[in-house]
């Protein structure tokens, strides 16, 4: 009987199992170690099951599978006969891809959690919510009606919110959780309105019905979904919660929130805009491209200024989400201008970057967690020299940093290269607005990619290289085996996808066929795993060859020199122009490394001001350099809103202190007004 089960059944069973693990963890609160192994082990196995089943569905390139469950609201969909209730679930190629990618992140985070969870001071603030979070994310992707979608979306938000509050004694974390909750509610509210608009009063909320029914208000729906899903994904200027909330959670949860949850938000956006809304207008891609470019540049600039390792990574997520949205915007633009094959290219670039970012960001947050576990520090100004203390973690961190810097031969480069290829075909488009804005966004993306390399030289170089800046860093110990296993798997996958990108592109074919009716050339037919997205004359890239050539020529050079020249090494004190300074504080710090970039870009982006206080000659006071930076987004958008809400709350507060007669009068007045409205409208 079990053998008759289809992959989709396995997925649902695994999601149910994840849901069950949450309450189970609560009942096991007396045995926290057992609960930890059970929750992370169980979640890892369930995620692996989901991942395999989704991959099977994706690679078999079959039709979408659907299922109806008699639970949920009584009237969620329109049938031929009338309203029917229950939950509608469906998995097509797009869903299968996202499900495979998110559960892959889930597997890695669960393995990591097995080891990292030991450092948790209050495991019961994480364990019950962790599997529910995973289940919520998977359920968003298999949802086929608005109710299941929004329900699981909220489940995902609330369970992750609970884990952001895991270290609730820290006031900064409470603030982060509050901002997160506000932004999540705001986003869901907009999505709710969007689904209402799409349904248009017909009463049917299943996606099949919405697909037929959509029209009329589509541009408004696009705006609502862009803001609603974009706030979850971290698009500027809706990103403010992300660098607060992602680092506050335990590191494997940060990896999930930054690597995976933002992708679920992107899935929601794609599902509505590319699938449900149908044919786009020609200008729809434009706001996406502009917001994406803005997010990429602003996100990575903020990361460059950041000292906290986990916050830096959260800002880098904003950059990567920007890259993905530029790809999606290009795809939407090309579809709107009837260029299906180019749309397929741009969309493939975006999806490839989704996959890559799950791997890279998952890996790097785990590295940050390893550093935190080994030293207790997240501030890169208190780290240094960890390559000697954590050699394996350092090697994996180097892989992650190279990948996030979009450098060949790793995977991050491939998806950015594809995005650039998609930009390069765009001058054939007619509308002038597109012709002028797309190349400018290309320059912004190039700037973001170069800034990313500088950011990760700074992050990796200051924390892993150099001399230790604190005793905690000097005494660090390599982390446990589970953590290294999880990081190693992700690191290997980063290298593998960088060398063989063709496998990923081929796996995307059914999605592109579904959405655009066009695909990229089959990559498994090209020689030596070369990636040729359009044609061989136009452009090609081969990660395998690049890696092989570098390894061969570097190895050959080393061999020849060691044979013919000298291979002797003498260890000596550092030269440093003859004046080596023993104090590690004389090394470049996070602030000083960022100083050139701050000088060039900071005055515009952050109104950065530097003030140097030099004591008079003979005065023994230390010289001081003070740097002030302003968060314009917070000050110009969120600050006023916060002030307005507070003012309104103060006013409304009066209503709490009325007498019973006044309350009765108020109720009566409300009733009269409502009846009047009805009388006029009806």
């Amino acid at each position: 009987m079990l053998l008759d089960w289809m992959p989709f059944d396995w997925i649902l069973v695994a999601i149910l199992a994840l849901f069950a693990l949450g309450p189970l963890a609560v009942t096991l609160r007396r045995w926290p170690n057992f609960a930890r192994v059970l929750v992370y082990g169980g979640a890892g196995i369930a995620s692996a099951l989901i991942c395999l089943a989704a991959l099977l569905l994706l690679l078999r390139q079959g039709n979408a599978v659907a299922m109806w469950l008699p639970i949920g609201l009584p009237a969620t969909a329109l049938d031929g006969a009338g309203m029917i209730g229950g939950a509608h679930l469906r998995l097509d190629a797009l869903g299968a891809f996202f499900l495979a990618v998110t559960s892959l992140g889930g597997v890695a985070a669960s393995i990591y959690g097995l080891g990292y969870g030991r450092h948790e001071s209050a495991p019961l603030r994480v364990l019950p919510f962790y599997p529910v979070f995973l289940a919520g994310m998977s359920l968003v992707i298999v949802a086929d009606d608005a109710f299941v979608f929004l329900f699981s979306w909220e489940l995902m938000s609330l369970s992750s919110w609970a884990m952001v509050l895991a270290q609730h004694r820290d006031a900064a974390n409470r603030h982060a959780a509050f901002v997160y909750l506000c932004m999540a509610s705001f986003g869901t509210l907009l999505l709710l309105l969007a689904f209402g608009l799409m349904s248009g009063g017909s009463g049917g909320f299943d996606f099949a019905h919405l697909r037929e029914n959509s029209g009329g208000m589509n541009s408004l729906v696009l705006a609502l979904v862009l803001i609603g899903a974009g706030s979850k994904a971290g698009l500027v200027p809706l990103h403010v919660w992300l660098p607060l909330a992602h680092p506050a959670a335990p590191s494997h949860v940060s990896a999930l929130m930054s690597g995976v949850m933002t992708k679920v938000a992107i899935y929601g956006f794609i599902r509505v805009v590319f699938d449900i809304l149908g044919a786009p207008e020609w200008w729809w891609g434009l706001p996406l491209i502009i917001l994406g470019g803005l997010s990429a540049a602003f996100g990575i600039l903020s990361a460059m200024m950041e000292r906290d390792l986990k916050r830096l990574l959260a800002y880098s997520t904003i950059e990567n989400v920007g890259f993905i949205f530029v790809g999606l915007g290009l795809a939407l633009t090309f579809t709107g201008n009837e260029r299906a094959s180019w749309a397929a290219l741009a969309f493939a670039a975006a999806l490839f970057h989704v996959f890559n970012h799950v791997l890279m960001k998952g890996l790097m947050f785990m590295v940050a967690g390893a550093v935190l576990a080994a030293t207790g520090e997240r501030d890169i100004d208190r780290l240094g020299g960890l390559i000697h203390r954590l050699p394996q973690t350092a090697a994996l961190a180097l892989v992650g940093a190279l990948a996030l810097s979009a450098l060949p031969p790793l995977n991050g480069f491939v998806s950015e290269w594809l995005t650039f290829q998609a930009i390069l075909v765009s001058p054939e488009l007619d509308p002038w607005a597109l012709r002028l804005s797309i190349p400018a966004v290309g320059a912004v993306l190039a700037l973001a990619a170069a800034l990313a390399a500088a950011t990760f030289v700074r992050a990796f170089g200051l924390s892993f290289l150099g001399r230790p800046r604190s005793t905690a860093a000097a005494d660090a110990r390599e982390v446990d085996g589970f953590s290294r296993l999880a990081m190693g798997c992700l690191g290997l996958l980063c290298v593998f996808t960088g060398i063989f990108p063709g496998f990923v592109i081929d796996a995307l074919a059914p999605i592109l066929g579904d959405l655009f009716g066009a695909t990229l050339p089959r990559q498994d037919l090209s020689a030596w795993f070369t990636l040729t997205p359009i044609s061989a004359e136009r452009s090609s890239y081969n990660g395998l060859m690049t890696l092989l050539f570098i390894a061969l020529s570097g190895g050959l050079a080393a061999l020849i020199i060691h044979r013919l020249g000298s291979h002797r090494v003498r260890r000596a004190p550092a030269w440093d122009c003859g004046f080596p300074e023993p104090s590690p504080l004389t090394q470049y710090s996070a602030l000083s490394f960022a100083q050139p970039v701050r000088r060039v870009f900071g005055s515009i982006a952050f109104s950065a001001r530097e003030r140097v206080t030099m004591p008079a000659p003979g005065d023994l006071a230390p010289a001081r350099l003070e740097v002030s930076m302003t968060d314009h987004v917070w000050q110009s958008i969120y600050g006023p809103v916060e002030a307005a809400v507070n003012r309104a709350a103060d006013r409304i507060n009066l209503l709490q202190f009325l007498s019973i007669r006044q309350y009765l009068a108020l109720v009566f007045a409300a009733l009269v007004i409502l009846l009047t409205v009805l009388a006029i409208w009806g």
Partner: protein
Amino acid sequence: MMLDFAIQGAQMLLVLGLAPLLLGLVRTLKARMLGRRGPNPIQPYRDLRRLIAKEAVVAENASWLYRAAPYVVFAAIWVAAALVPTFATGLVFSWSADLIAIVALLGTARFFLALAGLDIGTAFGGIGASREMLIAILAEPAMLMIVFTLALLAGSTQLSSIAAFMIDQEVGLRVSLGLALVALVMVAIAENARIPVDNPATHLELTMVHEAMVLEYSARHLAMIELGAALKLLLYISLIGCLFAPFGMARLGSGWEAYAIGLAAYLGKLLAGAFALALFETSIAKMRVFRVPEFLGAALMLGLLAVLLLFVTRSV
């Protein structure tokens, strides 16, 4: 087929063999222009031989990354240089990286070099790494705009295809191409740490960028880095030659005479490039580090202008 592989192999060895000579030539020419006799142009070869034979002195707290980085840097630049057509188009392995990938490969080399600068934990390494990354941040968008200009014209980012397009088609004088050429020269000067952005001959540490970053290196490690830097200079001059002056380049499958002509033309281009660089360097003063953003910002604006002109004039 065998011939194609032979051409690719010859190209790899040619760039490796010529790179130190190019550097020596620039130094000699510069010295002559300044009224000094200057070293023999083959001096860089002697330096490399001497460095390779020496015992390497490595700082006590250096990690494996510090010792591996020179080879990675050298290999990445060599691979990039081997894929830029010099005397013949249609290299066998040209499909393994297009122009964007070649630029990114140089980025990989820079990434490792900057990390190596930070590895010992001295202030000079930090200052060099941080400034090198700043220059890269500013140069990379400009470079990409140049790539865009060429790719839009030739309909390809493949260097062989672009070079073939430039030879075969009547491209003529185009404003975009002129702007792109100026921008590329500016980027090349910045990327190769030449005057006015950086001074390769300075011994005042605080004014250095590239040299400060590699301050701790000695012996064979230093040799690899110097050779890499020479290759990078050769790469940029070859790139300018192949894109903007593709005269005489042998086409795929042509006879021995064509290759001989191509080789002669290539040597001529290198000589011209070395002369122009020496002349430029002797006639201009080095600028402050914080003037570099304006310099490279101008390159970016030129590149962007070139692309926009093309976007606007396309299919009107």
